């Protein structure tokens, strides 16, 4: 009898805690989990499982400074790729090419949420609406 009471209380508590997890957090988890799968399929071969890139050929995704100051341009990078532009990440310059992708804006948002919150980064969610806005400003 006593056990049952404790059990019910525990169950109630966990339900309360789960629903306390704000809508934002749930949104974040949705984007992040979806983004992980996209990253593994589309980005990991080049940028590696730990985001460290490949020597001086492919830049790492671990430079929080670069990602923060270029946050609004990330969607354009993923959608249109990079060609013949020299970029500097972590003090090293890279001039390789990154291919364009056919990812939908929502998938770009997911993969960017994953990247900007993995490998030591913590930038919060990048929403599909944000990506739509950023894509209008691509050069």
């Amino acid at each position, binding site marked *: 009898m006593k056990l049952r009471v404790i059990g019910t209380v525990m169950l109630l508590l966990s339900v309360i805690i789960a629903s306390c997890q704000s809508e934002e957090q749930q949104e974040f988890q949705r984007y992040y989990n979806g983004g992980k799968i996209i990253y593994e399929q589309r980005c990991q*071969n*080049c940028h*590696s499982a730990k985001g460290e890139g*490949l*020597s*001086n*050929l*492919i830049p790492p995704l671990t430079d929080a400074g670069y990602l923060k100051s270029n946050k609004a341009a990330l969607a354009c990078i993923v959608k249109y790729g990079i060609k013949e532009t020299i970029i500097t990440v972590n003090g090293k310059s890279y001039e390789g*090419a990154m*291919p364009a992708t056919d990812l939908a804006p929502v998938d770009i948002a997911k993969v960017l949420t994953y990247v900007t919150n993995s490998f030591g980064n913590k930038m919060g969610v990048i929403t599909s609406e944000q990506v739509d806005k950023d894509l209008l400003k691509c050069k």
Partner: protein
Amino acid sequence: MKKLTGALFIVLLYTACKFNAADTPKLPIYGNRDTASNVVNGKTVIDSVYQTIPAFKFINQYGDSITNKSLNGYVYVADFFFTTCPSICPIMHRNMLKVYNDYKNVSDFKIISHTIDPKHDSVAVLKKYADKLGISGNSWWLLQGKKEETYQLGEKNYLVAVKEDSGTPGGYVHQGWFVLIDKQKRIRGYYDGTDEKQVDKLRADIKTLLAETNTNIAQ
């Protein structure tokens, strides 16, 4: 019952001894094989003749001419790639770097990577790629030459598929095999260069093979 355990014990001991007596682990020999009959001391003996990597001529990232003879006396690993490959090559060379770092100071070991896109991958492009990959010296050569010769060597001799196909990313079909070759130029192992576990096996097998060929030479 006691007798039975005793017998079992002896059998176990015997097999254990046999295990210990076995030679150091040997790697299989791949490729098509043929037989040849030779006359030794007046008797005809049938020997297996294994497929070997034939003569070739390419240029490395320093502009030096490299032939099959340049690899005489070396255990080596070969692969096929191109510098603008967007798919599996970055994974392959991230993994090959581990092999390079393990064995770059071993005097009878080399890595050769054949470009399958020699039109784009000139000597200068290969040198730049090598610099950026962080490799130097002569333990890892990036080789370029006539396209047909590279393709032939890949398909007929290393037995890996290489071909042009505008339908795949980057325009070429190729598999990420690392092929291990011994000092007699025979194929001793295939490893998926995109699979970290298989590459770890390769790193161990190279050690085995280096030991094997060294003892052969000592005999």
